[in-house]
């Protein structure tokens, strides 16, 4: 049986696993953005908090993903549902690039622009919402893009704790020494990563504030 035939025959299972994969990654990304962007603002605004926050996010990033899923398994509430656990673990992985890029976007705002804003009597909140965040949008989205591609890859490990997703095929294929099964998980995961990268790239250009020269 050729690979193409295999894909056609198992299209329903592949589609379902892809759906699970998108759900895990999508939920994790929304959480990571909701947590990471405010933390990035804090890191940029309060340098003394930048070490503890970035340090913690860094540590999460360095834990091997299989081990992290394992560590979280005995945690109450988290361990109750595999997808819940997987989403939390993926969120931890996605945080670092988002925090770092948000903070870099804000601290990268031209010092003269910030000085003029302050000197003209804008409040800190006005400077954040009208100047710093709009000017940081391209950098923040670049961070989301990196985090998404990373998370799509790591989410294949989630199958090890029973959270489903395209990793199911990969683990089954490994166990049965069946390359077609492995590819049935790996190829859609790779395509998903490429598609997400492309779409977020488009979004990055679309949301770039007018007046900022593209580079």
């Amino acid at each position, binding site marked *: 049986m050729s690979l193409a035939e295999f894909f056609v025959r198992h299209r329903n299972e592949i589609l379902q696993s892809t759906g699970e994969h998108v759900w895990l990654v999508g939920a994790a990304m929304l959480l990571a953005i909701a947590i990471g962007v405010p933390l990035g603002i804090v890191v940029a605004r309060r340098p003394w908090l930048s070490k503890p926050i970035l340090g913690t996010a860094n540590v999460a990033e360095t834990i091997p993903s299989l081990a992290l899923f394992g560590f979280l398994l005995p945690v109450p509430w988290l361990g109750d549902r595999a997808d819940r656990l997987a989403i939390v673990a993926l969120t931890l992985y996605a945080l670092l690039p988002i925090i770092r890029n948000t903070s870099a976007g804000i601290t990268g705002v031209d010092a003269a622009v910030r*000085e*003029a*804003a*302050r*000197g*003209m*009597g804008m409040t800190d909140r006005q400077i954040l919402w009208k100047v710093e965040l709009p000017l940081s949008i391209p950098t923040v989205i670049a961070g989301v893009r990196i985090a998404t591609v990373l998370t799509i890859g790591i989410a294949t490990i989630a199958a090890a704790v029973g959270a489903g997703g395209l990793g199911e095929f990969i683990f089954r294929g490994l166990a049965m020494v069946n390359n077609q099964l492995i590819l049935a998980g790996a190829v859609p995961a790779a395509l998903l990563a490429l598609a997400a990268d492309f779409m977020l790239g488009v979004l990055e250009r679309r949301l770039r*504030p007018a*007046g900022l020269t593209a580079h």
Partner: protein
Amino acid sequence: MSPHADSDPIIEFRNVSYQIRDAKGQTANLLDGVSFTVLRGETLVLLGRSGAGKTTALKLINRLLDPTEGDVRVEGKTTREWDPIALRRHIGYVIQETGLFPHYTVAKNVALIPRLERWPEDRTENRVNELLALVGLEPQHFRGRYPHQLSGGQRQRVGVARALAADPPILLMDEPFGALDPLTRGEIRHEFQALKLNLGRTIVIVTHDINEALLLSTRIGLVDAGRLIGTFSPEEFMRSKEPSAAPYIEQLRELERAGGTHESG
């Protein structure tokens, strides 16, 4: 004292020092015991070398910095007593690098303070057009452009228009023409003088350029190494025997000898 000025002190420095502490814990005085008064309607030019403390003095007026010692008073109140936002909205601020918002059009940049102050929209629009015309930028042509589409001189004009938008009684300008090429600089300086911005307005300008100081000032404050050497009318400055004034006067003489006409001529 200039003929426009009445005796109302608008800005007052009383024995002001500003210290910074570097990474090694050493302190350095950027300003050291500076006292002076700016009267209503005066244009005081703070003249000095880079690092003399001119910009620090300017930032103490709109409370971007707080003095380490002494008091800075604006309209009779110390800057610490002022609400910093209210104080800054009361003072126009122009800096060398302009600090225009790159994601705002020219019109939106100029309209910034009126919008924050919630002016009615038609009043804001009229004010934007009026100011762009005043600084020599045809409103219909320039309103919709972004800062990166302007030349350095045009950006600086927008910066001036933005600072004047809410008609502040005080205007601070930090090397406002410093980043421009000499020709543009000369032109915009003359236009600026012709604008008569100082009708009733109190202006403090920081520069290292003696031509600019003579052209724009009603009084010159000479700053050197964190100290105010003295304040002079332009005529007094040229006759001054003050050693720190000598290099500037010498520079002007050289320009004249070279056949250049200095612009106060």
